[in-house]
């Protein structure tokens, strides 16, 4: 049976995040021929509506209010639930991002519904759709479904393929007016720390360093390589514990779980906790002085050598590749 599915569009620095387009693709599968409705919340977001439609949303509902300029769980839940009440959908898809992780449990609680978090794959369609998600940080997976009520899922960035953009698609854009009030949280400031401006969770390339990087300065060549490849820098717990970098970069069972197209592990031995956070990456490259390092067991390609020799060479080779292609 065809379902109506809402997708929350997530905007960062004025642009829609990739995970939103992936969420539309996921929603299409749950809708199974039904309608996918994009939802945009913010102080001025209507201009982004057409982009949701070109990626497959049938129409878009916006809520604009000065109190929605920054994300707060109070503001966004009031606005989203107003759209929910109007649309009465059978499904909801949101990105499993910082925002999605914060907002979705509150919405689920309000709706007294189940919520399947951090989905990496969907099997089947419509009412028969089942959802695959990692447990134990990717050491295992579970296949789950919602017993009854709204099919509410958050999807992990970088795992579900978005539909091809089709500029000729059109759809209706409407707005709902919501009196957003009683925000209990005031955002004073956002301090940018992410070094390359690319989110670890969404990065297509992650260059990660471990104890072998030896110092905070040692991360500089890794940053250069990440920048060159349009990726983000990550780290092992060892590197974070040794204060070479911020804990926000940590990848592993405690820390972030990433699934980029390319993961370059430099000077990382490959403890089981670290492997849990990255072993589902599509292609893994290991660079380590120790030929017996555990990381080589999960690497597609390995180089036994000193990362401080290898990384600068890699930077030169990738530069040459860019010039030639």
């Amino acid at each position, binding site marked *: 049976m065809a379902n109506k599915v809402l997708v929350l569009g997530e905007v960062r620095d004025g642009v829609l995040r990739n995970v939103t387009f992936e969420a539309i693709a996921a929603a299409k599968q749950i809708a199974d021929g039904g309608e996918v409705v994009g939802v945009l919340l913010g102080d001025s977001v209507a201009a982004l509506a057409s982009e949701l439609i070109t990626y497959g949303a049938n129409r878009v509902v916006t809520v604009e209010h000065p109190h929605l300029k920054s994300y707060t*769980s*109070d503001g966004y839940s009031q606005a989203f639930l107003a759209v929910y009440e109007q649309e009465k959908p059978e499904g909801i898809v949101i990105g499993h991002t910082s925002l999605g992780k914060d907002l979705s*449990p509150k919405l689920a609680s309000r709706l007294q519904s189940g919520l399947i978090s951090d989905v990496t794959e969907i099997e089947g369609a419509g009412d028969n759709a089942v959802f695959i998600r990692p447990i134990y940080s990717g050491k295992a997976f579970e*296949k789950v479904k919602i017993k009854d*009520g709204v099919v509410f899922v958050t999807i992990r960035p970088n795992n579900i393929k978005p539909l091809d953009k089709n500029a000729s698609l059109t759809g209706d854009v409407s707005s709902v007016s919501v009196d957003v009030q009683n925000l209990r949280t005031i955002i004073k400031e956002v301090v940018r720390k992410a070094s390359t401006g690319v*989110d670890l969770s969404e990065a297509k390339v992650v260059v990660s360093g471990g104890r072998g990087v030896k110092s905070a300065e040692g991360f500089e060549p890794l940053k250069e390589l990440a920048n060159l490849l349009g990726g983000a820098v990550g780290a092992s717990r060892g590197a974070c514990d040794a204060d070479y970098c911020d804990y926000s970069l940590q990848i592993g069972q*405690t820390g972030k779980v990433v699934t980029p197209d390319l993961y370059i592990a430099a000077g990382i031995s490959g403890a089981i906790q670290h492997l849990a956070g990255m072993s589902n990456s599509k292609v893994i490259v290991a660079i380590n002085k120790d030929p017996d390092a555990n990381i080589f067991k999960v690497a597609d390609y390995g*180089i036994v050598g000193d990362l401080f020799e*290898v990384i600068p060479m890699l930077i030169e080779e990738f530069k040459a590749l860019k010039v030639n292609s």
Partner: protein
Amino acid sequence: MNIFVLVKRTFDTEEKIVIANGTIQEDGAEFIINPYDEYAIEEAIQVRDAQGGKVTVVTIGGEDAEKQLRTALAMGADEAVLINTEDDLDELDQYSTATILAEYLKDKEADLILAGNVAIDGGTGQVGPRVADLLGINYVTTITDLEIEGTNVKIVRDIEGDSEIIETSLPLLVTAQQGLNEPRYPSLPGIMKAKKKPLAELELDDLDIDEDDVEIKVETIEIFLPPQKAAGRVLEGELSQQVKELVNLLHSEAKVV
């Protein structure tokens, strides 16, 4: 200040996952306090030491979870509560867990509730915010700094590597992110004291919860291991040749750059 910490007993991060008969095997596995919950316990102890009050750690589980509660008491928590669902419920999901915790907490007049931002087993991060919503109090997730003055609260939270500086007020639920603090190890005197600290055990009946009210909403169909990844190629030859080959392979074979 009346402080509560929501904790979960989880597999040690060192453990490999073994599946037999469709379930994860627990025999012989080591269990720990979920690492993110340790940050929550540590922060609770620090807030209490600075402001006075009491720290109560709460968990849902079976008899086995008593060990983790004793560890929290040994770290410095004052009281512990085990909500034992072993006899009543076969399965719990985030909805049922949050509902039970909220039923327990609703008349406790908590000023501050702390939890880990995610448990390293199920990994949903839902329970904290759900509990806050059920209690009608505000919540802030993935915090890396907490300052409390009277009922005013200043928080730094991690949002995908950036820091958001937030002002809010008590009562409040926060979930801990790595970097919030350095959890202490229980001291020997702490371990001795913990044996005498109050540890209450409750069942659903004690909380006036009907089994039907906490029936799961998400059903697990199957649990499986990811395909074993075969070890790849370790390149050989001159280092500069290896690097050239690697870039070629990534570009032409793997097609990721």
